[in-house]
């Protein structure tokens, strides 16, 4: 009998529960604690079940994709129904394009570059803008902030066609800059950094001025080190946004060698031929970089993301 979804969920819940028991301090063993753990383990298991499915699907041989909800029985697994074939096809089968054969690793590098560069540029520009909004006084600040708030409510899609035209005019179409620059200084990020920097005492800035620091030096060397949690959180948000961006590269990038991972993966689900196994194997690979980033940035992320909201 094959493993059913309910079994998987229960197994996952049990696993989560066991991990908890190991993690938790020994003195904490009231019945109510166990009840709470049980509920939380159940929720976690429900959240994780799709991941379990995804992992199984990525390793299943395409010909048995629908035969088993999760994995084939052990005997069949050894007969080659569980394989690395999907990953192999993805990684070692180059795409035939006009620019010659292109391997998946190229797209990985493209995506990594695009996501990292986008993140860095946004981090720099948004923190600069946010700092100015929080700590500098100038005419028209209120109006500017009101304008920025308005822009956040505008659905991005109405600007898609005019933006395309603009990128062609200034010759940025089919370049990564065309994807990086238009969103590089955005209202959302600037508001986040405004919230993060507004609580910093003005005396600090004043002291910096007394010492003869330039305005930029004050921002760079005095203020930014103090808002590292927000920087970390913002990096994660930017990276996720850029890494998973589909519509942008799909429309603005044309050369096959410049495309990114989501666009390439979607090509495995063509009109006439769909390779779900390869697509899902690619999905699994695509989750890894943001997951690494999230693991390393978890603390900053939580602290930074909430610092703006908690302070209201």
């Amino acid at each position, binding site marked *: 009998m094959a493993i059913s979804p309910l079994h998987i969920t229960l197994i996952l819940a049990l696993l989560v529960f066991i991990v908890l028991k190991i993690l938790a301090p020994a003195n904490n063993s009231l019945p109510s604690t166990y009840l709470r753990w049980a509920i939380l383990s159940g929720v976690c298991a429900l959240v994780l079940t799709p991941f379990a499915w995804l992992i199984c699907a990525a390793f299943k041989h395409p*010909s048995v*994709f629908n035969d088993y909800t999760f994995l084939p029985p052990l005997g069949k697994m050894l007969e080659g129904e569980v394989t690395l074939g999907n990953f192999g096809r993805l990684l070692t089968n180059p795409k035939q*394009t006009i620019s010659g054969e292109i391997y998946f690793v190229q797209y990985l590098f493209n995506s990594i570059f695009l996501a990292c560069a986008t993140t860095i540029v946004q981090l720099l520009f948004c923190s600069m803008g946010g700092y100015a909004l929080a700590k500098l006084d100038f005419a028209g600040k209120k109006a500017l902030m009101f304008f920025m708030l308005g822009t956040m409510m505008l659905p991005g899609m109405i600007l898609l066609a005019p933006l395309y035209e603009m990128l062609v005019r200034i010759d940025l179409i089919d370049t990564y800059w065309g994807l990086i620059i238009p969103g590089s200084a955005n209202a959302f990020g600037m508001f986040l950094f405004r919230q993060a920097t507004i609580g910093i005492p003005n005396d600090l800035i004043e002291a910096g001025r007394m010492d003869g620091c330039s305005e930029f030096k004050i921002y760079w060397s005095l203020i930014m080190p103090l808002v590292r949690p927000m920087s970390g959180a913002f990096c994660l948000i930017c990276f996720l946004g850029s890494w998973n961006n589909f519509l942008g590269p799909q429309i603005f990038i044309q050369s096959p*060698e410049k495309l990114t991972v989501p666009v390439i993966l979607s090509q495995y689900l*063509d009109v006439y031929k769909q390779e779900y196994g390869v697509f899902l194997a690619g999905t699994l690979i695509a989750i890894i970089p943001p997951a690494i980033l999230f693991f390393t940035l978890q603390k900053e992320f939580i602290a930074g993301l909430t610092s703006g909201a908690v302070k209201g």
Partner: protein
Amino acid sequence: MSFPFGKAPTAILALAIVSGIIVVAMDVFRHESDPPDLTMTVFSGEHFRAYLKALPKFEKQHGVKVQLRRTDSRALQSRLQAAMQAGIDDVPDLVEIERDSIGFWLRGRLEDMKFVDLTDRIAEEGLDKSMVASRFTMWSKDGRKFGLPHDVHPVGLIYRRDLIEQWGIDVSQIETWDDFIEMAKLIPKYKDDKDKVRDHYALQMDIQNGQILELLMLQKGIDIFDKEGNPKFAGEETVDLIEWYITNSFGADSIGYATGGVRRGQDLVKSLQEGLVLFFFAADWFTKKLTYDAPSMHGKLAIMPLPAWEKGGRRTSVQGGTGLFITKHCENRGKLDLAWELAKYLYTNEESLTELFVDSNILPPFKDIWDHPAYQQPNPYYSNQKLGAFLVALAPQTPPNHLNAFYAGAKTQIQGVLANAALYYSNRGQAGFRDYIRDQLKRQTELLQREIDHNVFLKRPPPES
């Protein structure tokens, strides 16, 4: 000045620099080619591979360089649209477009078309005679032809020959859909009665994206639009068809089982392998797809013509289609003649078309090459049936399929009627069902008509008398 944002951002900066260098380096090692004389974009991987092999000969003959690009069909559409909407000449000279997205390009007035009117060239070469005539309807507007058809895509029924023969059923006796329903009664419903879940259904149906209903409409001679572009799908014939379709898809004794559709039908292959569904609608391209998706079905399947709606009626339909177009951009830069040569070369070239047929089972509409031996080859996957000859026999009967700018919307709306009708029938049954379908069709036609009326570009001046 050190980087003040913390460790992780510094790591990202480092990664950006490193990956940037790698990306640039990879680019440097890729040799830069001269600007091509012609550019062509296709969305299908199979077409791409076939053309890539065929191109060198053309390039040699004409002493030119052709750049072939492959883009995913969604990307192709959005990119071409964005480029054309922005008024930019950043478009290929030749482009292949799938039926589902062609409607977009037929919007607007005749003189505003983005593609070159090929009517005269087609007539001059006699291609309107030598190619299957119905296949030009998809990209014709006001009687002018804007594209060359790539394929015929006739539809047949694939079936589980092994099981059907085991039950002693002779499919050659099935001529009409009524015959089919009679035959379906011979199929056992259960493998064993233990789990009370039905194990066999005769026919593949689909509620999710309405493609089967559409091909049945076409088979019946119901086109979604008439030649003038007005919706004409709300007649009594359609009510009949939807009633037939739904009543045969639901209930304990139904002959049909609604699968997830063809394009996203992951469950299709599985239900075929299990024998859950025994007869499947399949266009030529789908017969090839199946050999990849269901290798275990080798030798167990066969294909038959669709049962007709009345004796002696049409035994096939069409599903999908791709056309080749030459852009105005190409004409403007004076490459039209060369592009036309290339179009003719690719679409009438026996060698590459045959190769494409072997590679994809797709039947080209160019009749002159159908006597090639490849079309007489027995196909082992389909129990050694002569697949090519089978498709060739159906091809002349393929129905016309008029498309226009509102096709995509109309399709969604018909699918909506189907989904609502399915819901109505499974909740309330036969009572008032026909009226409900009629109402739904009327409502959707009105919505469509509203959109058509809103379009100022389609309002032609009244004909001069």
